[in-house]
């Protein structure tokens, strides 16, 4: 499973089926209707799943799953 696929699964687990068919370059906030605190919740899930720690500030300006995937892969 690729990083992006795992990420999509985690987003689906947290935010429901709307995340499952979300294009990698879609705006997370717009597509899922979530706010910044909810996005931080997802960040915690990612940290657990990938065993990495990502500072909050690194996700500022990241609006897409592919952006998050790149962030994680840079740390693996």
């Amino acid at each position: 499973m690729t990083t992006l696929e795992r990420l999509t699964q985690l987003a689906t687990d947290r935010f429901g089926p709307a995340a499952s068919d979300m294009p990698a370059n879609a705006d997370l906030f717009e597509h899922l209707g979530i706010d910044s605190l909810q996005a931080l919740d997802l960040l915690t899930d990612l940290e657990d799943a990938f065993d990495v720690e990502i500072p909050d500030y690194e996700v500022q300006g990241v609006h897409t799953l592919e952006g998050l995937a790149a962030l994680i892969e840079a740390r693996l």
Partner: protein
Amino acid sequence: MSALPGLVRADVGSQDSLGALLDDALVMHKSSVALIEASRHREASRWTYLEVRRAASRVARALQDAGIGADDRVAICMSNQPFWLIVATACFVRGAVVVPLDFKLTAPEQQALLRHSGARLLVTEYGLYRRASDPWGVEVWVSEAPEGAEGVRRLEDLPDGPEPTRVSRARTDLATVVYSSGTGGTPKGCMLSHGAYLSQLDALLSVFPMAPGDRYFSILPTNHAIDFMCGFVGAFVCGATVVHQRTLRPEMLRATLQRYAITHMAVVPLVLEAFARTLDERLDALPDWKRVALDTVIRANAAATARGPRHGVSKRLLKPIHDAFGGELRLIFCGGAPTDRRLAERFYELGIPVVIGYGLTEACTVATVNRLTPFRADSVGCAVDGVEVRIAEPDASGVGQVLVRGPTLMDGYLDAPELTAETLIDGWLQTGDLGWLDASDHLHLVGRAKNMIVTPGGKNVYPEDIEALLSDIPVGALVIYASSYLFPGEGLEYGELIAVVQPEDDAPTWQAALTQRNRRLPDFKRLSGVLVWDEEWPLTASMKVKRGVLADRIRTAHTRADVRALEAR
């Protein structure tokens, strides 16, 4: 400052500089734990005061070897972590001027402020360093860089060496340059002297002392005046332990509160609201009979603490609630943005006092603060010792611009003499806030005389800076106002931005475009509402909107209730 009986702390009054004071504190409390960095699942590091002193000496020695001394500027751009405090201490020991940069700004924004500050050196974290696509333009020292990282010097590699030369500074000498606004317009670098900090510290510690054994939770950025004072200088002077965590995720904050039995913390209203939400969820889940019983206990606690906090009593009466916050939380400082009175009162009823004050970077940290005997949340408190507050040209109801004077004021804005002259007049700081003083000299804020907002997260935002981001919305004209400027006195919602638009008949899609664009703006720049202004727009000769005149006209014709909410998400 005369030390309170039983308290052991470095003597603020006898020192002339932050360097001398901190050095004194590090020696005085040498065997106590100074710093803990908490990460998610483990403790990342722990430092005694002696270890902090050794680390600060290594950094100071390296600064000395790099030729950095009196009045040289050193920028620090780091998240909440031990090296922030260690490097700042080292700078003060060397007589250098600290330039704290907000690590949450973008790299280009940080670089613009770095250039403006004239700093010779930047100390940052490797993660922040790497974000920049352009060179930083100065020497860079970093924490957490991998070995062999190019272009930077690793803080972890600084060698032990001979003790650095301690450079003495006078109270009138510059200690910091702190930027009170991040981006857009003229950078506002507040030049704060050692004397300003020492005066502020003296006043604050006389009201809210900490002591060895206290644990202060540092989550506000340390470039923020409150954390700089409470989570660095104040805590060190008192020998308290500073616990760092590099996140604002409420779930993690609660875990650390419990793990380290935190006694003090400073938050912005946003975090306080998150705590309250969790509390509400727990209380709502209680069966009715338990809720009734709890309400009875809360009333008993309110009676017991009517004259002032009694932490021991409250903790016994409301143990499950206090345990959720670690059981030892005695004081929450809430600042950076206006705090909802009801929220503060709610926490006080539960035996966790929330201290509300009023401050500006230009006045060091706080100008007024509520004492706790008795607790009050209906105002932002009365002036701290040595500081004067008055209302300029009050109207019939006593409301006017809040002016502040005293030893804690900045010397001026760096390289901005005109801005300084507008802001400091005859020694009085023109705050831009509107308020009134009650019979007991407590200050009440009602709005702003300047068109700016302070977000619940504590960020200053100038609406004009956001207009540029919306320049392609198909409307005839668009102007953004802070709601508290446009409609002062109609609620202190400093965080709200309102767009006033002139629609064009042939472009009815502007609403959808604005809504869509608004969703993409960073949280703190997002608009809350929109108001259509169909009347004539007052323009200057160069066809710019006369904002003040337009605001006056809007106030005459509308109230806040006429503003249509803009879907943000």
